[in-house]
């Protein structure tokens, strides 16, 4: 198509002596060969790939790939071990389960599954309005300067170990809320939720739910705060310019934008509440029953707490049965988390905002 044209210095022209040339030292051969000696295998992959003749590259790439595959293997192991160790309980003769285990599996685990979901839902009900409120406070109400330190304070809640929450919930919160429960029962006892004989210790499912709510609060808050801050500034200013009050602006410009993010945050909080063990183990004096009454001493226990309370002393089929319960818990949380991720992914597709 076109041809080259000679430049200023031809290939044979003698180089002028410059400072550079004068000080230059030959410390390696000028014409390093581009090609390395060929190996036995001529089709060793395209040259853009890791060069098999550069051992460091191959080893390092192999290590990195191996680590990634290890993660897949670990997860496969988790699933298969739970299946293998749990299956004796799933397929054993009910009579044998009744004598050596905790009884027939499905009817045994159902109340615990109910307790798990019930406690987590109650916690969500308590935590979500507060979490959204805090997130709005930090993103749109608090003075700029205060916003970040306040965010840290809420993050501190997330850093408190669950066993400490458990200790606080059972030794501090439960006695403190008991009079409140009695008042609720006395004045609102006609509502089924508050009916029944009030627990003497205050260690009811409502107390456990309050502790759980406190624990998932920072998770929901931090995710909501992030989406609130991502709300398009231009829309917010447009709303204010139309004469909207701050709350009207939030309703018009922030909440509609943030809705999928809020839902995802709620689902992730739910996932966390479902799997939380120690707070419930320590706060709740649970048993195996299905009831919606919040204030009595008859409370449905959760799967995680049941495992924690019984596993140290369990043996034989009982161990298998508890592991199978763990499998049920795994499936429930996996489903909840998958829905959350699906919502997030769907949002990422059409928002285009990074």
């Amino acid at each position, binding site marked *: *198509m*076109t*041809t*080259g*044209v*000679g*430049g*200023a*210095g*031809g*290939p044979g*022209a003698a*180089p*002028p002596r*410059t*400072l*550079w*040339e004068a*000080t*230059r*030292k030959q*410390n*390696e051969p*000028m014409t*390093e*060969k*581009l*090609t*390395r000696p*060929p190996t036995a295998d*001529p089709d060793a992959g395209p*040259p*853009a790939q890791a*060069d098999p*003749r*550069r051992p460091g590259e191959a080893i390092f790439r192999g290590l990195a790939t191996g680590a990634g595959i290890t993660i897949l293997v670990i997860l496969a192991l988790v699933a298969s071990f739970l299946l293998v160790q749990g299956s004796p309980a799933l397929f054993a003769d009910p009579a044998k389960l009744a004598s050596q285990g905790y009884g027939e599996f499905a009817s045994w685990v159902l109340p615990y599954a109910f307790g798990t979901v019930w406690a987590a839902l109650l916690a969500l009900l308590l935590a979500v309005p507060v979490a959204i409120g805090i997130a709005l406070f930090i993103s749109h109400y608090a003075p700029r300067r205060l916003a970040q330190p306040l965010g840290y304070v809420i993050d501190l809640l997330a850093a408190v170990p669950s066993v400490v929450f458990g200790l606080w919930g059972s030794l501090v919160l439960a006695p403190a809320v008991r009079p409140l429960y009695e008042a609720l029962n006395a004045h609102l006892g006609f509502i089924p939720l508050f009916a029944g004989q009030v627990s003497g210790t205050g260690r009811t499912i409502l107390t456990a739910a309050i502790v759980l709510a406190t624990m998932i609060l920072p998770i929901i808050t931090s995710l909501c705060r992030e989406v609130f801050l991502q709300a398009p500034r231009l829309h917010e200013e447009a709303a204010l310019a139309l004469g909207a009050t701050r709350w009207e602006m939030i309703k018009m410009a922030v909440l509609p934008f943030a809705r999928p993010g809020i839902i995802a945050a709620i689902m992730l909080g739910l996932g966390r509440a479902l799997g939380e063990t120690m707070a419930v183990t320590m706060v709740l004096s649970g048993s195996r029953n299905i009831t919606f009454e919040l204030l009595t001493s008859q409370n449905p226990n959760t799967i995680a707490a049941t495992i924690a309370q019984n596993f140290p002393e369990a043996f034989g089929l009982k161990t298998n049965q508890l592991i199978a319960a763990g499998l049920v818990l795994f499936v429930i949380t996996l489903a909840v988390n998958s829905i959350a991720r699906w919502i997030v992914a769907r949002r990422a597709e059409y928002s285009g905002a990074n």
Partner: protein
Amino acid sequence: MSKRIETTDLNVYYGNFRAVEDVTITIEPRSVTAFIGPSGCGKSTFLRTLNRMHEVIPGAYVEGEVLLDGENLYGPGVDPVRVRRQVGMVFQRPNPFPTMSIKENVLAGIRLNNRRMPKADQDDLVERSLRGANLWEEVKNRLDLPGSGLSGGQQQRLCIARAIAMEPQVLLMDEPCSALDPISTLAIEDLMSELKEQYTIVIVTHNMQQAARVSDVTAFFNIAGTGSPGKLIEVGPTDKIFSAPDVQATEDYISGRFG
């Protein structure tokens, strides 16, 4: 220490998209060759094929030959890493390594490749390279300070020093002055005319005055429209391209009618 580059019918692809079509050009040693053309015409893409930096982008590949003194860079068994040691590159934005001092930046090519060198030779190489990049006098008293503390123009010359410390055959410069102020630009341009005594220099530039000032040969790239591949329209001595180009499109571009 300076080699000729020849390409014949070179095509560059990003996945299924052909970004550059059928480029045939010879770039002579010890000269400055400038690539000019409107944005998106493939001149930077083509430049990056000359040291196989192009294929760093996933899905990108090249069809055709690039000969460096007769040796095909894309031949079987050619190691792109070795190609890059012979064909150095300076980028649009100065990119000194932020974790390294000025001295370590100059020695980066040696150190990062785990090569050993006696300390005296290292000091010698640092001074030689920094002098070669006209930076020595400005930084000789602070060689151990971070390279990111320099001004933009100094950082760019540091990157040039880093490239020539590898003693390459060819130096590719991808719009080396576009992020710099006029004074720094002048310093780099002066440096180029010194460096061409030693190297084959290829520069991509948006600035036609710069091409006219520094280059011996100018190559004009253009595209028919977005989505179609970039093509080499015309190449020739800079004087000729800027005064009496053969192709109408070149003249239109030079005279500022588009681009």
